[in-house]
């Protein structure tokens, strides 16, 4: 990869990677949190217990801030297809444009029409409609995930397309395109990973309140719901979805799998390196500690299976940054494993009735907050770096896709603009979310005189807009 300042393809890639990575920090929480809101609202309707409504009110504020930043950082993504990837848009727009448009019409319209009702509409709408608004928003966010993943799956494993006389792509079979097996597996893996993020965030805030000895009822609710969902989601994200995802890469992108694992030489009984650094110049893995046969088993189901090595492919077919790909993949696996252990231990402590009182565990759960974001990010880096050097796998190279009329300087200029704007946006987001967490959920308190059966709701600071 030519990464000099004058290479427009590199800067377009870097810009898209940066804006997309930043953008995805927000939807992954809305997709994960959406179903928590649905569940709590449903519990509130069923039981009439006010604590569930308080949880919904509190998390709807966090959700709203996330949603807003998700919207404003998401709109540039669609436009960058045209501004920086004109070659790709011209070539594949007839196919991938369909799902991008459908995402707008079926998912964004639904989400954005109801998100206001979810955040501000509880009193105006009544509980039942408020519940429906929560369902609409959660459904919209997952639908949007599906359409984007169909688009991405097409780039990873193009199916259902046809080539028109000018050599441009269109859709041949809508069913094959929309039900791309890659999309189905990637969607399950990615959505459950979003649930992991949602669970860890809910748990972390619960742990924070528990450590602070604030809002005990809410803290318990967040800790229990968060660790329960977190444990199940952390298991499912590894098996079967992550496992299936890796098998699919092995089947359709064997050279990518070799690079992810740092397999420079192919062979049977391939192991998984627990530790080791790829040394691309010397074409070997330095200082590896391997679990023998594990890769053969994980990728193909038998310990003796033959795993292709990078040596079987010409170097120009290799993903163009093997080191980064290797580290991303291995970091994702490591974090995923830690998540399972941590959440299993939290559930064990909950079973023993010590979840809210085990200070060490609460500290770890609170500080674990950023790690699912990291795991999601390196997971996507694995997928996208692994796809290289192709933009549409096997059909269209990345270097053919960028906008020829846009200079590297223009792209670098707008990239710097995004970095600055997003830095400020990030500060603002953290400040406002931190403030909401500081204010905390409103609580049913037992004031002096509660023996007369009076409950007073402590008013929380009100917000305009």
């Amino acid at each position, binding site marked *: 990869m030519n990464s000099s300042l004058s290479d427009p393809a590199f800067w377009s890639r870097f810009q898209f990677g940066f804006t997309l990575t930043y953008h995805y920090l927000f939807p992954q929480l809305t997709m994960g949190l959406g179903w928590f809101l649905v569940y709590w609202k449903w519990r509130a309707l069923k039981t009439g217990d006010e604590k569930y409504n308080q949880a919904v009110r509190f998390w709807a504020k966090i959700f709203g*801030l996330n949603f*807003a930043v998700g*919207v*404003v950082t998401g*709109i*540039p993504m*669609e*436009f960058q*297809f*045209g*501004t920086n990837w*004109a070659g790709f*848009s*011209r070539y594949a*727009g*007839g196919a*991938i*444009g*369909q799902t*991008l*448009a*459908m*995402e*707008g*019409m*079926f998912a*964004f*319209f*639904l*989400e*954005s*029409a*109801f998100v*206001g*009702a979810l*955040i*501000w*509409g*509880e*009193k105006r*709408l009544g509980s039942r409609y408020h519940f429906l608004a929560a369902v609409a928003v959660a459904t919209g966010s997952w639908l949007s995930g599906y359409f984007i993943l169909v688009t991405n799956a097409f780039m990873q494993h193009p199916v259902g397309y*046809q080539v*028109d006389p000018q050599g*441009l792509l*269109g*859709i*041949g079979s*809508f069913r094959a395109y929309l039900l791309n097996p890659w999309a189905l597996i990637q969607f399950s893996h990615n959505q459950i990973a979003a649930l992991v993020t949602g669970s860890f965030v809910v748990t972390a805030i619960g742990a924070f309140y528990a450590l602070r000895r604030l809002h005990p009822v809410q803290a318990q609710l967040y800790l229990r719901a968060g660790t329960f969902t977190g444990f199940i989601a952390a298991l499912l994200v590894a098996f079967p979805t992550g496992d299936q995802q890796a098998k699919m890469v092995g089947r359709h992108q064997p050279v990518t799998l070799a690079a992810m694992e740092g397999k420079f030489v192919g062979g049977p009984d391939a192991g998984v390196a627990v530790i080791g650094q790829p040394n691309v110049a010397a074409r070997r893995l330095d200082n590896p500690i391997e679990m023998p046969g594990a890769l053969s088993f994980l990728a193909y189901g038998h310990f003796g299976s033959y795993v292709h090595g990078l040596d079987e492919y010409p170097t120009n077919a290799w993903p163009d940054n093997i080191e980064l790909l290797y580290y991303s993949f291995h970091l994702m696996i490591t974090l995923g494993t830690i998540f399972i252990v941590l959440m299993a231990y939290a559930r064990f402590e909950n079973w023993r009735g010590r979840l809210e009182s085990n200070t060490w565990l609460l500290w770890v759960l609170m500080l674990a907050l950023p790690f699912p974001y990291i795991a999601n990010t390196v997971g996507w880096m694995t997928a996208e770096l692994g796809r290289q050097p192709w933009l549409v796998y096997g059909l269209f190279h990345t270097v053919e896709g960028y*906008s*020829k*009329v*846009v200079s590297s300087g223009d792209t670098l*200029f*707008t990239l710097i603009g995004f970095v600055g*704007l997003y830095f400020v*946006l990030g500060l*603002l987001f953290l400040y406002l979310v931190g*403030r909401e967490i500081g204010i905390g959920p409103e609580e049913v308190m037992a004031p002096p005189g509660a023996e007369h059966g009076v409950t007073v709701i402590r008013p929380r600071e009100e917000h*305009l*807009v």
Partner: protein
Amino acid sequence: MIAVWYAIVSFMLIIYVALDGRSFGAGMLHWLVAKTPEERRQVIAAMGPLWSWHEVWLVGFGGTLLAVFPRILASAFAGYYLALFLILWSLILRGVAIEVGGHIDDRLWQGFWDFVFVFSNFLLAILFGAAAGNVARGVPVDADGNFSMPFFSNFAVRGQVGLLDWYTVSIAIFAVTALAAHGATYLTLKTEGPVHDRSSKWARYLWAATVPLFLAISLESRVVRPDVVGRAIHNPFCWLGVIVILIAAGMLISGLSRRFEMRAFLGSNFILAGLLTTGGAAIFPVMLYSTLAPENSLTAYSAAAGEHSLRLASIWWPMGFALAVIYFIFISRRYMGKVSVRRDTQGYY
């Protein structure tokens, strides 16, 4: 088929302009119609929880454009590179200003975000107006269907054109005026008290100002693109647009003078729709006119995706649009009436 898709894509753009135009207009007039912090909250509350609903129509438009006319999106967005990023950054700032301004009840904080709100909406109205002017005037599309051009050159409309010249600037001035008038009409409908009275006054002034400006840009367009007028008079949709504008102007005038605010606002929407219909029909089928050589121009027919893809898109588009209509009914019912800014309730809208 292709003409129908051209109409659909234009229609989505019209909806976007009519919806988000409220925000552009209200944003530009923010300091003029609302003087106190409470009044300014009223204006923001009129945008409030719906700005993202308005903004996603731009996403719907962009996605549909990519699906149906991929070559237009590829050429135009890359060609308008820097201007497009200014639009994107303004959209980010505008959304953030609406969303976070009210989060903290502090004069300085809200004053700052009010400034961002005004600034970004102004920039958006100017840039969208200039973009429309560029589509009408044409851009230097080469034989491969690509173009790139400077922000401004010597302000000439022929030869080496820039993004801003006297023609596109006058279109931008017209767009600023019309969108401000649209926003004022919307605020008249949605607000009470002093904000309402000032908005109503501004709506009259601004709509009156659009008339001479419209005549001016019509004459300019005739000079800049003489070929268009000859074709336009044979296009029934141009006449449809003109009729819509005339009826809508009637609705607007009677609505504003007799305080039928909903009628005035509908008229305002239809004027924008009529203007864009006339413009869109007049240039059809050329979507990006080449100032270098007319044969380089990208037309709806040369830029469209394959027949089969278009057929597939015509399956899901009506479904998506039907759902959008349902949401629209829900939203209209829920957010009907004047906005109220009260601190003692959970809902502010």
